[in-house]
Every structure is written in C-alpha cells, then in structure tokens.
C-alpha cells in the first residue's frame, strides 16, 4: 500500500525544482566550459607540441621537450634544454614569488592598520573611507602611468621630495634601474591594493561584538594585549580568506609590471615572460608550457592552502 515516493517521481516539488535548477545551470556552465575549461586544456596540449604562432594547427607532439629534454653530443657532453633549465624562467619565478610575498605581507599589515583606524569613531570617517577607495577605483594601467610620471627620473615629484628632505643625494631612475625597479612595482601595488585589504579587515572587525571590547576595558586590559588576544584571533578567518585572494592575484600579476617597468629583467614575472614567449618571440608552445607551469603552481598553492586551512579550522571550537 505504502508506495515509495521521492526523487523517482517526476511531479513533486523537489523534482520540479531540480529540473529547473538543471536548466538554469546549463547555460552558465556551458559558457564556462567554452571560455575557461576548453582553452585551459588547449594551452596544456600546446605545451606538449611544437606549435608556433603562425601555424596553430601544424604542431607535432613532442612530449615534455618544452619542459625539459637532453641531448648527448658525440663528445659525450649532455646538453639540457627546456623551461626548467632556463635561467630567464627561474628569474621570473623568483621575481613573482618575491613580489607576492612582500606585497601581500605589507598589504596585510598596512590594511589591518588602516582598518583599525577606520574602526574608531571619529568625525569624517566616511570621507576617509571614501578617500581610500580612490586607489582601488583607479584602473591599474592608469595608476601605473600616474606613478610612472611621479617616479620619473628627471621630472618626477618623488625624486624632488626625497632630495629636498635629504634622503637621497641625486635623482634616481626608479623604474629603469635594476636595483630599484622591484621597489617601484611593490610601492604601486601596495598603494593600490591596501584599500581592498583594509575594507575586508574592516568588515571582519565590524563583526566582532562591541561588548567584548567593553568587557576588556572594564577589566583594564592593555589595548595592545586586547589586539593580540581578542581582535586578531577573531578576524583571523576573514584575514586568511583575504590573504589567499590577494596572493592568487599577486601570483598572476601582469599589467602593472608590463607598463611600469617594461622589459626589466629585475621585475619580469611569470605571466610577463610567458606572454612574451607566446606572442613576441614566436615560441608559442614554449610559452604555453610556462603558462601551464604557472597554472600548476597556483593550483598547488590553493590546494595546500585549503588543506592546511582546514586542518587549522578544525582546531577552532567555535567554527
């Protein structure tokens, strides 16, 4: 008598909703497969061929040669070839990692500081918050050019400021000199992205109930101790998410470096060198291999972060 009903029946509410959900998702997923998954697979495929820019369909399968290969000369000497033994590539890897680490570290600390300031109640807070949104709103390319002008060696205002304060004794070509180019890129990136960090931190701070602070105040706990023992642990989850988003952004940086310090070995990142090989040097397959490596690096980074993060979150009782 009691027939089994459920997912098998086609007329119930949940069946109707699941059917609708399927058709709602199909267009979006097909679009993503078309513009993301398929091109990614093609890039990976190209990295195992000798395809060139001019003849996209004439590539032959050459296995891992773009990554690493060796040839033994008749003299017995072994010659290694491929991205993995290319000093220019490793230079780019080093630049990218260095850039990511330093910029995210500074942005996190500065962002947290700005957020703490904005979390105070003071007159004109809305205006200050609006002001810090400006760097974020300016397109990266535009800010690269603005800063390029400010950092100009002959007429730049930065040199003028530093000279008049006495911090330097002659004008410096910030973006063109190998020693300082990375500092220039870091400065602009930190300037542009700290607001984003500050807003995320501020959102985290605003979720902390006020009475926790009041309780600490009544107990006479020193503000610095309150920060380390109360504030930081409570906004840690929000902070961790913000850091991963920023790190992923920093690892793939292209536009700022490309425009602010063109052709500088000191700042060339993985994205820049890969694009250069793909389109400027007609080493399409080689560039594809480098793109694939960057993708793999980011994938590993994300998995590790999620994995470590989960282990960590498990320890938090309140999660």
């Amino acid at each position, binding site marked *: 008598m009691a027939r089994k009903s459920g997912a098998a029946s086609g007329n119930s509410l949940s069946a109707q909703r699941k059917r609708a959900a399927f058709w709602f998702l199909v267009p979006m997923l097909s*679009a993503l497969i078309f513009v993301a998954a398929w091109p990614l697979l093609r890039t990976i495929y190209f990295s195992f061929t000798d395809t060139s820019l001019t003849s996209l369909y004439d590539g032959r399968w050459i296995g891992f040669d773009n990554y690493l290969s060796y040839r033994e000369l008749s003299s017995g000497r072994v010659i290694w070839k491929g991205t993995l033994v290319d000093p220019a590539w490793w230079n780019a890897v080093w630049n990218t990692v260095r850039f990511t680490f330093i910029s995210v570290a500074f942005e996190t600390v500065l962002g947290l500081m700005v957020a703490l*300031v904005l979390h105070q109640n003071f007159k004109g807070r809305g205006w200050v918050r609006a002001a810090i949104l400006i760097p974020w709103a300016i397109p990266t390319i*535009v800010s690269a050019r603005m800063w390029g002008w400010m950092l100009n060696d002959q007429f730049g205002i930065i040199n003028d400021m530093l000279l008049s304060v006495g911090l330097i004794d002659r004008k410096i070509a910030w973006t063109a000199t190998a020693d300082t180019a990375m500092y220039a890129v870091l400065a602009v990136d930190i300037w542009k992205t700290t607001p984003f960090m500050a807003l995320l931190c501020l959102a985290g701070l605003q979720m902390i109930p006020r009475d926790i602070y009041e309780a600490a105040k009544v107990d006479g706990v020193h503000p610095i101790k309150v920060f380390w023992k109360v504030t930081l642990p409570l906004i840690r989850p929000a902070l961790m998410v913000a850091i991963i988003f920023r790190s992923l952004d920093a690892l793939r940086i292209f536009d700022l470096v490309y425009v602010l310090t063109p052709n500088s070995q000191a700042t060339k990142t993985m994205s820049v060198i890969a694009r250069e090989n793909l389109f400027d040097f007609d080493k399409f397959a080689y560039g594809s291999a480098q793109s694939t490596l960057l993708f793999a690096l980011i994938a590993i980074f994300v998995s590790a972060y999620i994995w470590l993060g989960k282990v960590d979150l498990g320890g938090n009782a309140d999660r």
Partner: protein
Amino acid sequence: MKKHLQNVGFWCVVALIVIVSVFPFYYAVITSFKTGTSLFEVDYFITSFDLANYAQVMENKKFLRSIFNSVLIAGATVGFAMFLAVTASYALARVHFRGRSLLLMSILAVSMFPQIAVLAGLFELIRFLGIYNTPWAMILSYTIFTLPFTVWVLTTFMRDLPIEIEEAAIIDGATPWNIITQVFLPLMWPALVTTGLLAFIGAWNEFLFALTFTASEEQRTVPVAIALLSGSTEFETPWGALMAASVIVTVPLIILVLIFQQKIVSGLTAGGVKG
C-alpha cells in the same frame, strides 16, 4: 597631556592615510592642467589651469573610439554575465541537489584562474571563430572572470533572502522562473546594481586580454590605449595629455565608487569574506 598627544598622533595617521591615497590622483590632475615647459617643473599645488590637454584628448578620434570600445565591451560582458548568473545563482543558492558545493567551489576556482593559463587556448579559439581584433574577442574572454564573480556574489546575496517568502510564492503557484523574475529580482536590485558595477569595473580595467586580442588602434580599449600612448623617445611622452586622459577615464569610476561606497563594500565582502 598624554591623551592630547595621542589625539594628535591619531589625526596625523588619518591625515597620512588620506594624503597617500589621494595624492597620485591629485598630482595627475595638477599635471593635466599644465602645458609646455611648465610640465617639467615640480609643483605641489595648482599653478596653471590650462585645458589644452583635455582639448587635445577629446579631439583624438582614436582615444574616443577606445572609450566607446571599453563601454561597449564592459557593458555587453556584464549584461551577458548577469543574464546567465541570475538563474544560475538561484539554482546554486536555493535548490538542494547533490554536488552543489563542489560546483560552487569549481566556479570559485575558475575566478582564481591565472589568465595567462588560458591565453594560448583562447587565442586559438578566437582565431578559429574569426573574431580576432574585434570587440567580440574581449566580450567572450572577459566572461571567464565576470561570470564566476557575478555567480558567486549573487549566490551569497540570494542565500540571504528569507525562505518563507519563497515558500509563500510556491504555495501561490509560482514556478522557479516566476520566483526569480517576480519575487527575487525586485528584492535584489541593490545587489544586482552592486554586482554589475563591480563586474563592470573589472571588465573596464582588464589589460592582458585586450592587449593580446587587438591589433589595430581602432580596436583598443582604454587601458591598452593609455598603456601604449607614448612618443618615440621618453622625452616625447605627452605627459600632459596622458594625465588628462587618465583623469578622464578615472573620474567617472571614482564618482560611481563614491556614490555606491556602502554597497561596494558589502559586495566586496560578500565576494571575499564569506568565501
């Protein structure tokens, strides 16, 4: 006394934050009002008010064309993404089915893609479709970041809508399509505006795809036009005109951001914190 010093220190920090945030833009504005040799003198305050640079930029047909391209591309990309994202995010936020969280994570993963990783494959696809050096190349390729972003943010917004309103609509005989179009969309328009604006800014600012998939000056978007605007030597870089152009494309964004301040912050945190 100590309290007083603390106060002064606090206001110094606030002033520093504001000055550092605003100064580069302020300096670009000052520069854009200068012409001739006065460009090469460092000034901290406005010394001249010459609109010649703006006139020069506005007379430049190619630059105006770039602005048109950017508006068209960003608008079309966002419209397309929102159209697909609204229904998809309803499914992701409101319907229980197996593999839902896996799907959400994959969509988030796509938004974290390094764009360079799809560049070669997209180039092939765009060549194959015959849309290289047309706005369609950008409209297609920008979907890769606008679509996951809009889906993700709208899903978090839609999840917060009260369940009983939806159930009341179900009892009233509303299909999922009715619920989206007649109940949820009218309730969500602030979220839609925010999401659309953020996606628009993202598309407006994009550089790598626009640089790679355009060849002629007429097809360039604003960032590419500004990046490649230069004289034959460094001394010939038209700094005044360049800064004027920068100000022109930035001011609308700043105004929008200031108007939608509150909403943008909630949109950013929906995309970020709740991830």
